[in-house]
């Protein structure tokens, strides 16, 4: 496989959209575009799963599996048997940079 980025976890339910426009505002890759009645999902493949849209959608019309996407953290978490990689102060931290 030479495109691990072919699909992602972004889900959008237009039935819940109240057309507030925030998803189009916060997305750094223009995944959503404003429209007359509801937002349009125009570039789903460009989604980097940052979660900005999900967090700012007041009705929960958008869900995405956002979280730590750092390869080193995910590898460490997998090897150390932790469920979820975490950024933050030791001992929870999954990387060498504690902060």
């Amino acid at each position, binding site marked *: *496989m*030479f*495109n*691990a*980025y072919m*699909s*992602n*976890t972004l889900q959008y339910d237009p039935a819940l959209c109240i057309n507030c426009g*925030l998803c189009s*505002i*916060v*997305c*750094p*890759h*223009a995944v959503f575009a404003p429209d007359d009645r509801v937002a349009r999902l125009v570039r789903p493949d*460009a*989604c*980097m*799963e*940052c*979660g*900005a849209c999900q*967090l*700012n959608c*007041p009705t929960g019309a958008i869900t995405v*599996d*956002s*979280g*730590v*996407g*750092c*390869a*080193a*953290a*995910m*590898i460490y978490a*997998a090897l150390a048997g932790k469920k979820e990689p975490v*950024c*933050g102060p030791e001992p929870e931290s999954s990387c060498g*940079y504690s*902060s």
Partner: protein
Amino acid sequence: MMSDTNANPKQPHIQPATSSITLANRWDHFLARWGVNRSGHRIEPGLYALGHPTADSPVFVTANYTLSFDALRSALAGIDGYIMVLDTLGINVWCAAGKGTFGTDELVRRIEAAALDKVVNHRVLILPQLGAPGVAAHEVKRRSGFKVEYGPVRAADLPEYLKTGRATPEMRRVHFTLRDRLVLIPVELVAVLLPMAIAAVALFLLLGPLAAAGAVAAILAGVVLFPILLPWLPTHDFSSKGFILGGAVALPFALSTFWRNPDATWWLRAGGALTYLLPLPPVTAFLALNFTGSTTFTSRSGVRREIFTYVPAMAWMFGIGIVLTIVLVLARVWGG
């Protein structure tokens, strides 16, 4: 040096700020970019007064990382306003937002601590767009009464944003230009310098100069060449791009070994070449995979898929390459 810009003794202290970047600031930025004292580039969180703000002046929000604070205030030359600095532990806005430290809770906390509703008449906060992964605008409104307006991605676009009252679609887009990639190289390079030096010395002593040079080349290819060449390397995955680059960099070493001993048997010569072609490309590929965390566009799902697809291959190739090296060294030692 610290003068209160308000007279009310009950009001929390507001620190002054200017929009000028000094030599000391630039030195601090340089050190930060080179990974010196990585999480130490921070300022005290809280409310700052930029210029001479009044109760009607805008309120901007940023992280307590010096590069973030300095990018914001230097973009606001000639503008009077308040800057609310959140405690992100010295991490930039976008990363802190992803981690949650540039978040709803911290923002609401700082608004209350500064008694912001007494400082300004309006109820608007201008946040950097890339704070959005950590901030729920509607939650902030509900809990503090302040409305979050997401300004442009780049602070440099703020004057235009303030003039027109809106951000253009291009102001809301993030790219990953060559310059963006170049500024990330020094800190990655500094992080590998010690392991690379140790590997080079060890390999030089055990196997000679070519092996040491090969290892250094593979590491530098992953840390310096890969970020530069990223968009031009074939395939979508960073690991496969890294394998291709690593293979290209290892090839001269493999060919040099192959041609160096024309008298040896063919399979010994091929084996020698493989001691470069097997372990070196995985090193470059692994470093390339780790660069996903520094980009502006790779998704978590994609990186996870990459890890499960390529890391076993990296481990196998590297392991077999090491074993092969040991076998050939022993063969040479015993063969005389």
